[in-house]
């Protein structure tokens, strides 16, 4: 059975410092992995996705994530946080080209001025 664990419910960083949001997964098959962002009162927006083409995935707004099969992790990073990055971030695992989609519980990112 597949599952997703986001290791931190809240992360707080200062503007201009690096961001690390952690995600571990389990899957019986070779999964597809995604990160979505949800700003207050806005819809879910895709940040990036892993499809097995490359282990380091670059997304929008300077975010990137590295797929590590040996660690079953897919952590999201950004070198320098911006105030506009404050939002809820969800790690998502999907099997079979869209079957069995599971969202993590989410990590709330706070960015301090």
């Amino acid at each position, binding site marked *: 059975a597949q599952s997703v664990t986001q290791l931190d419910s809240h992360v707080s960083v200062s503007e201009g410092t690096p961001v690390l949001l952690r995600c571990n997964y389990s899957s019986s098959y070779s999964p*597809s992995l*995604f990160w*979505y962002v949800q700003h207050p009162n*806005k*819809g*879910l*927006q*895709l940040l990036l*996705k892993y*499809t097995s083409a490359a282990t380091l995935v670059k997304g929008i707004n300077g975010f990137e994530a590295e797929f590590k099969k040996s660690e079953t992790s897919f952590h999201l990073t950004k070198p320098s946080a911006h105030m506009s990055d404050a939002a809820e971030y*969800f790690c998502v695992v*999907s099997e*079979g*080209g*869209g*079957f*069995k*989609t*599971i*969202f*993590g*519980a*989410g990590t709330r990112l706070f960015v301090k001025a």
Partner: protein
Amino acid sequence: EAGVAQSPRYKIIEKRQSVAFWCNPISGHATLYWYQQILGQGPKLLIQFQNNGVVDDSQLPKDRFSAERLKGVDSTLKIQPAKLEDSAVYLCASSLRLAGAEGTDTQYFGPGTRLTVL
């Protein structure tokens, strides 16, 4: 390209009443998903359609929830009767490829319907 449309955006009802939500996916998208997002939690998949057939409804509370996707385009999710614990945001998403196809299947989300059950 127009995104996923949902209506209404907000709904307040009393418990034991009925409510329906509507979703129009992106044109040409074969797969449609309904999620329930309770405050403070990640979205939970309720039902997944491939064209007008149900692919997965294992987490749909079938005693009170129903959904249909007639003609394989737009979809309606209904709750009858509603309970207090149904208060949540109901999200609709769609994806281009048929579920089970090789490769990824990026889901595009609508703005959601916020349901409050009093």
